[in-house]
Structure formats: C-alpha cells, structure tokens
C-alpha cells in the first residue's frame, strides 16, 4: 500500500518521506539561502564603479531579474510570513539604491551647490510669482471655456443622432489623438502664415480648450448615459419635455458620476499648462527657464518642479478622495 517503503521507491520518494512534501520554494531556509547566494553572486559579478561593458551589464541584469522573480514568488504567496516578504522587498529596494549610487556616476558633492543654490536666488522669487499667476490665469480661462464646450458637445453626443455622432466623434478622436504641444505649435507658428494671428496666451488657451473639451465631451457623455433609461421614461410619463428632462432629471444625476473624472481632467489641464512654455507664454516653467539662464544654475528649474508638485499632489489626492466617495455613493 505504501509504495515508498517498497524497494523500488525512488530517491525522491524516500526524501519526501523523510523531509515532508514541501517543494523547495515553500521552505524558508531554502529561500533565504537562495536570496543570500544570489546577493553574493550578484556582488561578485558586478564590475567596479563606472560604465560596465555590455556583456557584463547584460549578465548583471539577467542575474538580478532572476533574483527579482525569486523574491516575487515569495511576495505573492499568501502563506509566507510578513517578515520574509519584507526582507525580500527591502533587498530589492536596497539593490536599486546601491546600483544607482554605484553606477550613475553622480558627483554627490556637486548636487548640493548646484541643485539647491538658494543663495543665488534674488529676484527669482518675483519671477515665480508672475509665472504662477499666468499659469493660474491660463488654467482658469481654459477650464471655463472647455467646460462649456465639453458640456454642450457631451449633451449633444448623448442624443445618438447619427450626424452629430459622426461630427462630434471625429472632433473628439481628432483632438484626443493630437499631441497638445503639436496643436499649440501649429496654432502659434503655422496659423500666422495664413493671417490668423493669436497672442501666445490665447493660442495656448485655444489648444488647451480643444484638447480638454474633447476629453470632457466623453466624460459628460458617459455620465449622461449612466443615467438609466427608466429615469427619462418616468420623466416623460410625467409630461416633462426633452429639455426639461435633461435639465431636471438627467444632468443632476449625471454630475455625481461626472465629478471625479472631471476633476481629474482639470488637474491634468493645470499640469498641461507647462507646455505653453514652447510658445513663450510667460508662465511658471518659462520664467524658471529664464532664471536658469540668468543665474547659471539649474536651481530655479528644480524649484519650479517642486512648486508644481506642491500644487498638484494635493490636487491628485483630492481627486482620489472624490473617486472613493462617489464609488461609495454609487454602491449605496
């Protein structure tokens, strides 16, 4: 009955009888040993600091990919204890940090006095203030116009008229496919050839409006279509006209599903205003670049990045909060 006791039992069967049936990747000691071996092997494989040759680099990469896969098998296994997972994940983080320090060739002594040269920043703060004002103006104007346009087109598209569907569909897909920077450059640099001259600010606004209203059209349409047919049936049965139904019944309900993606879109609109740099609109990034040339240090550029981050990270968190809230609302 018990085959492993018979003389024909293989080595593997006798092994299993003795040590249990756990495969090796289920054994902590085997895993830890593998990770340690891999680390040691990796360290031994690594060339000195500087640029490695291609074959060496490939070998190192293959080695660490294998390591990573090993760690990944631990990480996705729900049976493994948390300390083992944490060792695995920390080892990967440490690896990346170490590789960066060793091979990026960064001269750490220069980072401080070049990237954070705050002593050379007189006069730059005013430029930031002006730039930020222009950025905010651009965002506000573009957002207001594109919201009106997006709402109109979204409502029209939700009516499923074939002609409207064709035209608005083409508009939406065209401006979703067209890079913002290209449409800005075309509007600002190409249109003057045929006599249409827009100031830089309005050229940037126009490009932003065209692109964002295309995205918003889809957002509004999806929101409107998320309101069920039964709602408009009920409104019609009460005798409300089409316009009344849209205004009193459909739009108020659609707005609850619309608001999270819409804020998302508006956040990325603010982010996209930085592109206006290429057509010399004096917004935040443009001014920072001027300061870079003026002060001969990249500090203003770095700082402008932190300014964007300080504005936009809270905005992103706000969007996420809205999304969660609306998910709860829909679930109720």
């Amino acid at each position, binding site marked *: 009955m018990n085959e492993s006791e018979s003389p024909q039992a293989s080595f593997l069967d006798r092994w299993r009888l003795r040590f249990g049936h756990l495969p090796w990747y289920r054994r902590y000691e085997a895993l830890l040993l593998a990770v340690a071996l891999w680390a040691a092997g990796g360290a031994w494989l690594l060339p000195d600091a500087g640029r490695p040759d291609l074959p060496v680099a490939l070998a190192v990469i293959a080695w660490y990919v294998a390591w990573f896969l090993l760690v990944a098998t631990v990480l996705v296994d729900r049976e493994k204890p948390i300390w083992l997972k944490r060792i695995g994940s920390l080892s990967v983080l440490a690896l990346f940090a170490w590789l960066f320090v060793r091979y990026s060739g960064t001269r750490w002594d220069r980072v401080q006095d070049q990237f954070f040269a705050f002593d050379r920043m007189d006069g730059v703060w005013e430029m930031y203030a002006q730039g930020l004002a222009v950025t905010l103006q651009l965002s506000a104007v573009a957002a207001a116009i594109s919201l009106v346009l997006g709402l109109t087109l979204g409502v029209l598209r939700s009516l499923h008229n074939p002609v409207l569907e064709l035209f608005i569909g083409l508009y939406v897909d065209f401006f979703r496919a067209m890079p913002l920077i290209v449409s800005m450059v075309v509007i600002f640099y190409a249109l003057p050839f045929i006599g249409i001259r827009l100031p830089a600010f309005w050229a940037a606004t126009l490009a932003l409006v065209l692109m964002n209203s295309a995205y918003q059209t889809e957002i509004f349409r999806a929101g409107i279509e998320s309101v069920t047919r039964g709602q408009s049936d009920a409104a019609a*049965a009460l005798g409300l006209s089409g316009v009344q139904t849209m205004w009193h019944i459909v739009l108020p*309900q659609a707005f609850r599903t619309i608001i999270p993606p819409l804020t998302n879109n508006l956040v990325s609109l603010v982010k996209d205003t930085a592109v206006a740099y290429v057509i010399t609109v004096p917004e935040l990034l443009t001014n920072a670049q001027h300061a870079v040339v003026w002060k001969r240090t990249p500090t203003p550029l770095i700082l402008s990045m932190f300014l964007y981050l300080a504005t936009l990270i809270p905005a992103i968190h706000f969007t996420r909060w809205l999304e969660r809230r609306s998910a709860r609302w829909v679930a109720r």
Partner: protein
Amino acid sequence: MTGTGATGGRDPMIQMEAIHKYFGPHHVLKGLDLRVERGTVVALMGPSGSGKSTFLRCMNRIEEPSSGIVRIDGMRINELRVDIDQVRADIGMVFQEYNLFPHLTALANITLGLVHVRGSSRREAEEVGRAALERVGLADQAGQRPPELSGGQQQRVAIARSLAMRPKVLLFDEPTSALDPEMVHEVLDTMRELAQEGMTMVVVSHELGFLREAAHRVVMMDDGRIVEEGPPDQVLGEPENERTRAFLGKLL
C-alpha cells in the same frame, strides 16, 4: 363622443386600434385593439415577451407605435399636431422599477411635474404633494430620498407622484414584480383603494388575487396578440384558450 359627460362606464377612456410595433425586424405587437371604459380596471396578462409591457407603453407613447391609432378620452394622440407632454400629464404611469428620481426627496419627486408641467406655484404644488403622500400613507416620509425608503414605500411614492397630477387614467407596469413578498400587499392595497374610487386603470400584473377582486376585465396576451379577454371569473376561472390555461397552470 368626446366623453365629457361621464355616465358610469359606457364611454371609452382609452381606445387602441390596430396597433403594430416593430423593433427592427421583430414584430412585437401584431395588430392589437383594446377599449378601456371610463372607471374600469383592465388587466393585461401574458408570458414574458408577449408584448404586454410594450402595449402598455404605447398607450402614452413612451413607446411609439409603428402604426395604428391611440385615442385618450376621445382624442387621437399619435399625430404630429398633439402636444404629447400635456397628454402624458393626464396619464399616470407606475413602473416596475419605481423609477423615482434618486436625487430628489419624495416630496420633490411629486412636485416636479406639478411645477414644471402643470405650472402650479411651488407652494400649491407642495400642498398637493403632501396630500398625495398622505393618501398613500407616507406623510412622514416626505423629506426622505428614494434610496432611504423600502421598495414598497418607493412604489407608493411613485403612485403618489402619478396621482398628484390628477390623471384621467393610471397605467401600472408590473408594479409588484420587483418587490419583496412582504411588501406586495401594501402596494396592492393602495391600488385596490384607487380602483374602488373609480379610477380608470390598466394594470400589467400576475397577482391573481388582486385581479379577481379588483379587475373588471382581464386581457390575455401571447406573442403580440390578444388571445382571450373577458371578466376575471371567466378568464381566470374557466379559460377557453389553450395557451391561457397553460400559462395559468404555470403561474399557480
């Protein structure tokens, strides 16, 4: 002829003549005729897919009939010169899924049509709305939003919403099918009271007890046609048609 002098059930409130309906290639309604006298309750029955809901929705043109004539209170309503919104204001409709407006309170659900279709003042509409809520026994729920109400309460608010418009006729589209069993009776009680007060009603329903008690006429539909109609005792008790018998057999 136009039915202004109501004298107890002889003049028609709804006349459907030779109604056909196509959904693309599907022939859903195949030439239906129906007369609903003033002050009577007519029930539509039939297996799912028989077209009874579509037929009901043709009566206020929520669904546009492909051909045929719909008359409400003697006036033909499916032609271009008719203001369909004003017609619909006179025809109440109660849906299977309630279709209350979830972003409005129960009271606001009711006053919406009064203010924007009937043109009453907001104060007047609220009075009428509260009275209508009281009528269905939900006076204390006026400020609640639909998601906070039970299914039975929602359906009663939906009935109050139709009632407040002072309709000439009420259409019910399977009003109890989406309800939990213990809530069915509260809706049926409300409907029974309406029937006793002489409201003209067309009801799509399979609640046999209610139909026996309240309906004046039962119409059995199958495959887009009327296969049998008559008083409930006859159609539900001793049906002549084979398909009616089969359907009732499955229902019990």
